[in-house]
């Protein structure tokens, strides 16, 4: 029976996406990235002894390695907390079958050990172990050290699952926990307490000693506790109908605050809908918060460290993000966000031009709000570049918004609004990232050709303004694109190809 479940899991891994077109390129890109990480791990693991000896010539190799193992585990833990996903085998389809439910949970739990985050550290640990531990220590000691490393990985695996079960998908809590852990580790390092180093050295040093077996048991005991805790947590959660929908949500007051928009007729109602969509659904809301992080990142590109030609290449990134953070992250999915009810949208007597106009106004309003919020900061930290910043606001307002809305009509994949957006590549393709490049060509070219800063700002801003004024051209163009692709979009949003 478990062999069948394993086969189902295997199928779920390879049947989750259609390996065609842009999806294929994204798939290949992620596999290449995986191969790249693994190659790095292999190289670091193999040459770790040389690196360590260079940095700490006076300390024994294994002493340094042992002291840093816990720190490494903590760093990996932070990464996996945000990136690790649960296996895709769902227990629900099997619950009504004559399969032992505890057995099912054990199977599910063991399956998580095959996660990429447990595998790639081994590509680092195994070459190191073969080269430096196995030849230098008795086989028993070397094996107990390796077992200790494996237990550490398994422990962090179950700790992540346990925490996820405890706090759900509240990223804020996760962020606070990760920041807390990073803070403790940093204090430990900065204040030279070195408690973590000492504990790590003590544990793994003894694993290589005579009491290795005893220390292995000491490491295995908390792991068993974690495993049992996760088992208990999962036993409760698999019986819920749908963990994400177990409870009804409280209705917010957005409708009351946005009531004034209803005065503007169907366009006002459509803008209301856009705001409710973003605020009331998990994935769009998270993209909104991520966009704000992007906006903050935008300031870093204005660093005085970037001068001359480098500034010409770096500043556009920053300026695009400062007023266009939401457009760049959110705009390309303006129609996909509505994939859940796109059929309803198509049958209602809503003119496509009105729909496009509402979306364009929404995106333009986001540029204006971000411009107003960020301009005091830019005026303070880079007053000499404020004209260019204002020019990029017009560029985003008039051109980026319209271009991204036009590109949004090229997305045909369904988006689940209730899923977390973090490390979620559903409906995302490689072209979503590449499209920022052509957006930057014009401003970079203008800045490169027009030496005078004010003149180049005028040119970029003028182009943006002209594009904004050309709304009467953009809206029918985007509406035509939408009308031409509505069947394909509808089919894709319903989960079909044609």
């Amino acid at each position, binding site marked *: 029976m478990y062999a069948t479940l394993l086969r189902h899991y295997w199928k779920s891994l390879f049947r989750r996406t259609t390996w065609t077109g842009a999806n294929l390129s994204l798939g290949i890109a992620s596999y290449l990235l995986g191969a790249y990480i693994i190659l790095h791990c292999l190289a670091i693991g193999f040459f770790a002894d040389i690196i360590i000896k260079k940095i700490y010539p006076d300390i024994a190799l294994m002493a340094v390695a042992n002291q840093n193992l816990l720190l490494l585990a903590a760093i990996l833990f932070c990464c996996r907390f945000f990136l690790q996903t649960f296996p895709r085998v769902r227990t629900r389809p099997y619950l009504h079958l004559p399969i032992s439910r505890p057995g099912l949970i054990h199977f599910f739990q063991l399956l998580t050990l095959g996660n990429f985050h447990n595998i790639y550290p081994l590509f680092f640990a195994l070459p190191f172990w073969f080269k430096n531990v196995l030849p230098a220590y008795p086989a028993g000691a070397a094996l107990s050290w390796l077992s200790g490393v494996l237990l550490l990985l398994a422990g962090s695996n179950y700790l992540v699952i346990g925490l996820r079960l405890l706090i759900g998908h509240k990223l804020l809590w996760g962020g606070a926990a990760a920041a807390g852990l990073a803070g403790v580790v940093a204090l430990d390092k900065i204040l030279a307490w070195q408690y973590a180093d000492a504990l790590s050295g003590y544990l793994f040093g003894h694993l290589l000693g005579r009491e290795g077996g005893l220390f292995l048991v000491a490491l295995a005991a908390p792991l068993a506790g974690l495993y049992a805790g996760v088992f208990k947590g999962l036993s409760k959660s698999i019986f819920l109908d749908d963990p994400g929908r177990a409870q009804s949500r409280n*209705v917010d007051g957005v409708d009351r605050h946005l009531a004034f928009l209803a005065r503007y007729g169907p366009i006002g109602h459509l803008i209301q809908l856009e705001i409710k969509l973003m605020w009331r659904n998990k994935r769009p809301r998270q993209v909104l918060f991520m966009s704000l992080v992007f906006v903050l990142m935008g300031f870093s590109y204005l660093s005085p460290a970037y001068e001359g030609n480098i500034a010409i290449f770096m500043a556009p990134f920053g300026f695009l993000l400062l007023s266009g953070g939401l457009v760049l992250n959110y705009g390309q999915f303006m129609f996909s966000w509505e994939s859940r009810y796109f059929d309803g949208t198509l*049958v209602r007597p809503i003119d496509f031009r009105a729909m496009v106009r509402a979306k364009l106004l929404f995106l333009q309003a986001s540029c204006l709000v971000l411009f107003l919020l960020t301009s005091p900061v830019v005026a303070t930290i880079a007053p000499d570049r404020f004209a260019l910043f204002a020019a990029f606001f017009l560029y985003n307002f008039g051109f980026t918004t319209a271009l991204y809305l036009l590109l949004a009509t090229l997305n045909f994949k369904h988006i689940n609004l209730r899923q977390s957006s973090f490390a979620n590549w559903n409906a995302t393709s490689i072209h979503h990232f590449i499209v920022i490049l052509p957006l930057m060509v014009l401003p970079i070219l203008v800045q490169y050709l027009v030496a005078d800063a004010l003149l180049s700002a005028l040119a970029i801003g003028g182009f943006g303004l002209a594009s904004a004024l050309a709304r009467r051209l953009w809206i029918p163009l985007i509406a035509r694109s939408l009308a031409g692709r509505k069947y394909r979009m509808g089919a894709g949003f319903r989960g079909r190809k044609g």
Partner: protein
Amino acid sequence: MRIAIQGLAKRYGLTTVLDIPAFTIEAGERLGLVGNNGAGKTTFLRLVLDLIEASAGQVAIDGENVAAGAAWKKNTGSYLDEGFLIDYLTPEEYFAFTGAVYGLTRDQVDERLERYAPFFNHEILGQNKYIGDLSQGNMKKVGIVAALLPEPRLLLLDEPFANLDPSTQIRLKNALVELEQGEEITLIVSSHDLNHVTEVCQRIAILERGCIVQDLQTSEHTLKDLQDYFAVGEDRPSTASPTSEEEIL
């Protein structure tokens, strides 16, 4: 509204899922679509609503090709599935939005919603819940009422009786029968519920593998005929034919 279908076909690759050479639904007619799963009922409704592209032919509503214009939408109400609902809105917000896009005032929306109070059974309005948090049956009630809200002249419903509690099924059936007594409303209902569909519709089309294999005017024998048609057994072909020739159009 009169619906005229000419040479309509829908194919996915080499598979033809719908093929209707010619079919007309006169204004004010109530048509029931019946057929087993995969017979093409939903595809038929989606083609009428211009949700999918026809591989050949066209659907015209009051002479307007649905794929070429959008004027027909103003007088058409429909509910096929949950894909018509905006699940992060409350029912009140959803009705207000639907009313606004059909050009109704808030007062008109409220006044029309009052009529459906018995249908809602105190489980929809004023519950402070998003549509996505309602039960399947209540979601369907919201969808059907939203389709009726603009008082359309063409109404399309896919499996309207499924998931509804018995009282609501009867209320809905009565509401659909009463539709005809007001303005001339064309109704197309697809359903697996042979009892309800024969009570509501004057005309029944049986779809099988994408083709309309029988087109019946409803009479007191129709339910029995349909039950015989869909009965699983070796002798089905002999019982599938209508009881009298005049029932075949």
